[in-house]
């Protein structure tokens, strides 16, 4: 039952995407009106499914072993769950202004996966297996599950704690957002092959790490009468900074949008880990085939 729990959940998730995407079309063709199904729907339906998937991913290590083994591991897992809940509650209470329950559940479940993975590693080590051996047999699962956990942390924290500001700035103004201060140092005229516009240069003040100047462009394409904003993005391990120059609001002031998105890079890192896990699985299968052929 546990074995296919995540298969079932992932299938339901895929079905949901199909349903949400085709629903407006079905309603329209049936002549029942026109409605939109967008990100808010997918977020709302996906979140509980995702939580279930994360939960079952954490228990997946319990699957092998004898009945006695399973009971022992179950007891350990309860301890792990308690630990996960406590650590996530502590982190959130200390580091964030208010405890949001969705973030709490999400963070607990990702810690649940990570701690269970570590526990599995510890168990294997106790069986006197070398790290290399562990990697060869369980490497794929390790990488893939860690990848999911890391991506999940990225998604949960960046969606819950992103900061955004829409402001008017003149050259020389400084705008604070979170622990960052952005100063508009100058705005230059821009000329391209099929566009004109402006380029704004912003400096990050008071940073411990040196960040290159952020340059955002507003390009005006006369042929299509469209003004497009080309944002400046600074990616960091703990946060992404995003600055977009928007239309001028008066002859010497510009509209800007700023984003500070924490843990954004983790989503990508988690993805890379998952890909690595997948490749590992392929290598593992090949290795097993080779061994079988030898025997």
């Amino acid at each position, binding site marked *: *039952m546990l074995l*296919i729990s995540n298969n*079932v*959940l992932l*299938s*339901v*998730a895929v*079905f*949901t995407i199909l*349903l*949400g995407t085709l*629903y407006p079309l079905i*309603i329209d063709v049936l002549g*029942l*009106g*026109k*409605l*939109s*199904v*967008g*990100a*808010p*729907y997918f977020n*709302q*339906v996906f979140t509980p*499914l995702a939580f279930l998937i994360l939960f079952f991913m954490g228990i997946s290590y319990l699957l092998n072993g004898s009945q006695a083994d399973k009971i022992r591991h179950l007891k350990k897992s309860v301890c792990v769950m308690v630990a996960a809940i406590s650590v996530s509650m502590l982190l959130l209470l200390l580091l964030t202004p208010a405890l949001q329950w969705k973030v709490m559940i999400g963070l607990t479940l990702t810690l649940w996966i990570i701690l269970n993975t570590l526990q599995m590693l510890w168990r294997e080590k106790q069986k006197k297996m070398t790290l290399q051996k562990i990697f060869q047999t369980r490497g794929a699962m390790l990488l893939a599950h860690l990848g999911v956990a890391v991506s999940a942390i990225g998604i949960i924290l960046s969606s819950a704690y992103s900061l*955004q*500001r*829409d*402001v*008017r*700035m*003149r*050259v*020389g*103004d*400084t*705008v604070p957002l979170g622990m960052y201060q952005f100063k508009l140092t*100058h*705005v*230059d*005229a821009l000329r391209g092959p099929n566009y*004109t*516009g*402006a380029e704004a240069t912003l400096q990050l003040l008071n940073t411990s790490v040196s960040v290159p100047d952020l340059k955002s462009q*507003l390009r*005006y394409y*006369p042929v299509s*009468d469209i*003004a497009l904003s080309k944002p400046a993005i600074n990616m960091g391990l703990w946060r992404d900074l995003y600055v977009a120059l*928007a*239309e*001028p*609001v*008066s*002859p*010497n*002031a*510009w*509209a800007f949008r700023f984003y500070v998105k924490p843990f954004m890079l983790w989503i990508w890192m988690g993805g890379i880990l998952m890909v690595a896990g997948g490749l590992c699985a392929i290598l593992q299968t090949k290795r097993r085939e080779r061994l079988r052929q030898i025997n």
Partner: protein
Amino acid sequence: MGKRTRRILIFLSVLLSSSGLAESTEIYAFNSATEQLHFQHMTEEIRCLVCQNQNIADSNAPLANDLRQIIYEEIKKGNSERVIKKYLVDRYGEYILLKPLFSPLTYVLWLGPFLLLLIIVIKIFCGMKCGP
């Protein structure tokens, strides 16, 4: 805004961008952080009708700007999310809501995934218990 007006405004702004002394101002200023979040949340749920597939929070289209301005003013008046959504739906229809309303028309949409999950779980349990 006409083509020429746009061009001129951008050009003038670059020309006149010299040092400013006063503080910069929020484009949408609210009295409290809750109102600010409310605004952000609402603009992410309203569709930009002239864009391919964007909400009005992310779009620069004139209509998106107008609708954001309206939502801003309604929030400042103290109107609830339901009232503001009804205002927009009365004029543009349900199409403008990116999060569909829960109504007989959308029961399948909202409940479908969970019903499917339930059916599969029941089938599996039945398979295990009522099996050979």
